[in-house]
């Protein structure tokens, strides 16, 4: 069947190129838009994503917000109070604060300071996201990290020991991160005392209380206990906080809607272009399909022949689209757009390709199903 379908494809080159082009454009657009969206979603939740989160961790923040990027400050004394709960093993205060970085050439940029206790650095960054240096170098006073990919937008060269100013106070880059960007201001990791110093946040305030538990199985009960005992706080499973952050930004910025619309329109247009081209191709070959029916092919066989052609178009188009998508990924990687084409995402795109190709072929199938073998006379 596939062999016969391939012969039909090869014979009708112009239409085959048309269908394959439609598949490639649709799938490349869908893949590009979704991978960009996933990348941005990763950035939105990168305060959690950059942290080496363990199963037994609970993050406690002020109750009013569901977005880790928009935190209100909470009382430092709560760090000890939460630590006194029987299921809690340790608590770590974290400062998240906006600041302005100034470089020697006078360039300025908005940054977000992430201060956590040394040497644990509970908020990260993950080792896999370090380009140069190590977190132990952040123990020293006046030392900060800086993001490699943010250097381009800052119009400056980033190198170890580079002197900078944060809110007018001197600092030195002792750690360079890579792919630890945030959605908005670049993240700068440092010791909590440095963060307080640069941001002028009172020692009595913290942004997050990272809480570790003796037993990860007590996570839900501890979350409930904290939420009950401290009405102004909300305890989160870190992954849920990340999801909540992404959801909130997607809704408030309308980003989900605009990316979603693009993807849906790419699917619809691909569906119809493929469908109508296959329909037109089936009309061109209607005599051949009629002949097949007259000499003894069943309706089912002829329908399968059309679907087999759509399947081949889908596979060829998918392979080309994936090559283009990998090309796009390699092309933008140096600008810090770390697009991830995971096997699951690739499989999802394959299913979409099959759906729009085989779905589109149903126009032709419908036409050929009605074709009487007697039409050949």
């Amino acid at each position, binding site marked *: 069947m596939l062999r*016969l379908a391939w*012969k*039909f494809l*090869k*014979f*009708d080159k112009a239409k085959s190129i048309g269908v394959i082009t439609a598949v490639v454009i649709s799938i490349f657009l869908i893949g590009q838009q979704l991978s960009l969206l996933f990348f941005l979603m990763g950035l939105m939740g990168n305060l959690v994503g950059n942290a080496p989160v363990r199963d037994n961790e609970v993050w406690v923040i002020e109750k009013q917000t569901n977005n880790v990027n928009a935190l209100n400050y909470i009382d430092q004394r709560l760090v000890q109070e939460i630590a006194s709960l029987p299921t809690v093993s340790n608590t770590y205060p974290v400062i998240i604060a906006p600041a302005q970085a100034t470089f020697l050439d006078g360039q300025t940029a908005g940054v977000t300071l992430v201060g956590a206790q040394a040497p644990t650095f509970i908020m990260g960054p993950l080792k896999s996201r370090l380009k140069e240096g190590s977190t132990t170098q952040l123990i020293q006073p006046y030392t900060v990290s800086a993001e490699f990919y943010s250097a381009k937008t800052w119009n400056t060269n980033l190198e170890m020991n580079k002197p900078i100013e944060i809110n007018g106070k001197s600092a030195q880059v002792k750690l360079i991160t890579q792919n630890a960007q945030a959605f908005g201001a670049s993240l700068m990791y440092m010791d909590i005392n440095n963060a307080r110093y640069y941001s002028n946040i009172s020692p009595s305030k913290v942004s997050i209380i990272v809480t570790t538990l003796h037993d990860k199985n007590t996570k839900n009960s501890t979350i409930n206990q904290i939420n009950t005992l401290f009405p102004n706080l909300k305890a989160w499973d870190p992954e849920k906080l990340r999801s909540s952050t992404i959801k909130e930004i997607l809704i408030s910025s309308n980003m989900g809607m605009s990316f979603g619309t693009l993807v849906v329109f790419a699917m619809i247009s691909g569906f119809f272009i493929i469908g109508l081209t296959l329909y037109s191709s089936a009309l061109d*070959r209607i*005599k*051949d399909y*009629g*002949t*097949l*029916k*007259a*000499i*003894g*092919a*069943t*309706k*089912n*066989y002829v329908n399968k022949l059309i679907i087999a052609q759509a399947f081949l178009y889908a596979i060829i188009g998918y392979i080309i689209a994936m090559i283009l998508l990998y090309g796009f990924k390699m092309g933008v990687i140096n600008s810090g757009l770390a697009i991830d084409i995971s096997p699951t995402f690739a499989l999802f795109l394959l299913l979409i390709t099959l759906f729009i190709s085989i779905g589109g072929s149903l126009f032709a199938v419908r036409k050929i199903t009605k074709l*009487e*073998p*007697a039409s*050949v*006379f």
Partner: protein
Amino acid sequence: MDNEIVRLEGVEKIYQTGDTTITALAKTNLTLESHKLTLIMGPSGSGKTTLLSIIGCIIYPTSGRVFYKNNNVTNYNENQLAYLRLHEIGFVFQQFNLIEPLTALENVMQPLLLQKEERENVRERATQALLSVGLGDRLHNLPKKLSGGQKQRVAIARALVTNPTLILCDEPTASLDSKSAREIMLELKQLASSGKAVIIVTHDLRLREFADYTIYVEEGHVSTEIKNEEYYK
């Protein structure tokens, strides 16, 4: 009758379009035998092709019964009829109806592949069929690279490759020059002599010299059935 292949009993075909009723074929009784070459003649629109389509199990009659080798096939479903056509009937069309994307060999292989024969066996049988119609040197040519006569020979090879008992031809010589037409008719006559039932729809009076029977159809009525020798007398 031992030689009976197809029998039509009171077969009628009526098309209804809105308020208009068209009788494409009036009540017809007809028997077609093996070892015979039968012509179906008549003016355009007389019902010849409708008769051929019913004999070829391509369309259902509005009423009456169709017997194939004494089996009533009138109530067969589409798949059963497709199976019958695939295994028992060979078709040769006026416009050859070769499948354009396939080579001569692949066209002839197609009915055998539909029968789910093994591919190697299929290739060998199709090659033999093409050799038997003198196209051994055109096996891998696409239809567009063949002359009208060669296309018709491929069509005949395709019709014969499954060894059918009934061969139906719709104006097989209409697109051919006189020489090619004669060669094709001699081949069809030879097939009838070898035991097939060959039915040919034609306008060409010259073909009567090859026929054992001639059936006339006019305005849906199968009016005359003349044994050929009697006609010439």
